[in-house]
């Protein structure tokens, strides 16, 4: 007996079994395990001779078939319990085949739907992002504490990105008072400074001290913080600046 072996023609052992049943014109419900086992094994041998790699699931199925077949060959009166088992395995196999065939058959219908839908072409949607306004005007020209936090977070993020892989730790203690003195001197001289420029050193302690110093200065009503736009920098300016310069 000769078999035409098609590589990759089957989706698995169940598919192969269905194919063999169809060729033998046997109804699934009338499946004779001994016959189908022989055909199945012939097929596997043919694949072996062609030196095709046989997936393990095909061998598992072969083992199952042989098991069912051998059980059915045992004398009946001796193995009443075994017979029940044999029926079970056979029935499960039939159920599996029928169940699998359902999906295999409905695949044809899905293919039709796929082809039908494939006749309609669409295009991607318009990209509206260039039309979205990117700057949001503040409702009032007052500075909220949230904005200050946001600016600080942005600064820290930029700092993280700029950070070298190795850092040398130099401990140098500065006080809030020292920092306040330096800042107020700078601000009186420059009149206006950007928030992001105040942090000329990037260590946590320095940033915290500077931030505290800044809050103290603003609290003392000598300085004011202004932000024109939501995403713009915050500026610190001296209230007495005009008198000095």
């Amino acid at each position, binding site marked *: 007996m000769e078999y035409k072996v098609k590589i990759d023609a089957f989706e*698995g052992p169940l598919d192969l079994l269905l194919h063999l049943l169809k060729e033998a014109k046997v109804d699934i419900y009338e499946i004779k395990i001994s016959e189908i086992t022989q055909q199945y094994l012939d097929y596997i041998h043919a694949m072996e001779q062609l030196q095709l790699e046989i997936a393990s699931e095909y061998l598992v199925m072969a083992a199952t078939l042989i098991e069912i077949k051998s059980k059915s060959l045992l004398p009946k009166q001796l193995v009443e319990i075994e017979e029940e088992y044999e029926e079970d395995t056979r029935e499960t196999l039939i159920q*599996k085949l029928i169940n699998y065939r359902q999906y*295999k058959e*409905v695949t044809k219908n899905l293919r039709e*739907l796929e082809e039908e839908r*494939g006749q309609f072409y669409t295009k991607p*949607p318009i990209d509206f992002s260039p039309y979205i306004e990117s700057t949001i005007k503040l409702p009032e020209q007052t500075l909220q504490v949230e904005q200050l936090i946001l600016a600080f977070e942005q600064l820290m993020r930029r700092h993280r990105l700029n950070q070298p892989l190795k850092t040398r730790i130099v401990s140098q203690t500065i006080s809030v008072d020292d920092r306040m003195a330096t800042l107020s001197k700078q601000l009186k001289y420059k009149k206006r400074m950007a928030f992001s420029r105040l942090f000329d050193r990037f260590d946590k302690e320095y940033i915290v001290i500077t931030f505290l110093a800044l809050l103290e200065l603003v609290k003392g009503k000598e300085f004011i913080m202004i932000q024109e736009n939501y995403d713009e920098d915050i500026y610190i300016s001296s209230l007495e600046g005009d008198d000095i310069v």
Partner: protein
Amino acid sequence: MTLFKEEQVGVLEGLLFAVGNEGINLEQIVYALEIKEDVTLALINELKSRYKKESSGLDIIEVAGVYKMTTKKDHAMYLKRLIENPNQRGLSNATLEVLAIIAYRQPITRHEIENIRGASSDSIVRKLLTFSLIEEAGRLEGPGRPILFKTTTDFLDYFGIQTLEELPELPFVPEDFILDEESDLFKLPNEA
């Protein structure tokens, strides 16, 4: 602001053009045009009937709950000439088979799929995930908590249907032969 009907049809056409293959649902059109639902439906029908004329190359389809502007089905053969490799056969048989099992049995684990097919399906499931025809649907409460899969709205669109109810019916199977779910070793008995 109320527009005359002619203008409304024009606006609708523009909306459909803008949203492209993402589609637009009825509520969105109602919102954009500030008109009632029944009026909107009448507008859609009006535009559809205009597109039916031979002088138009466009059409409107309804898939997965949205309206989409498409080219005409009858013109597909001409449009295919623009495609460099027009051997688009769609999904492979094996892929379609796995997709069918997921569609009718969702949510389903990979193990259950493999149990039905009697063959490993890992790479196919992954392929379907990247095509976004299926997606994860949580995990099965059981040993190993395996991932469950279900179909997506892209799946509905791919087969040109509105809902899962529109899927073709599975072939009839006598009750005695319906596979007992409990026979699956890895499936826990229903606790509920």
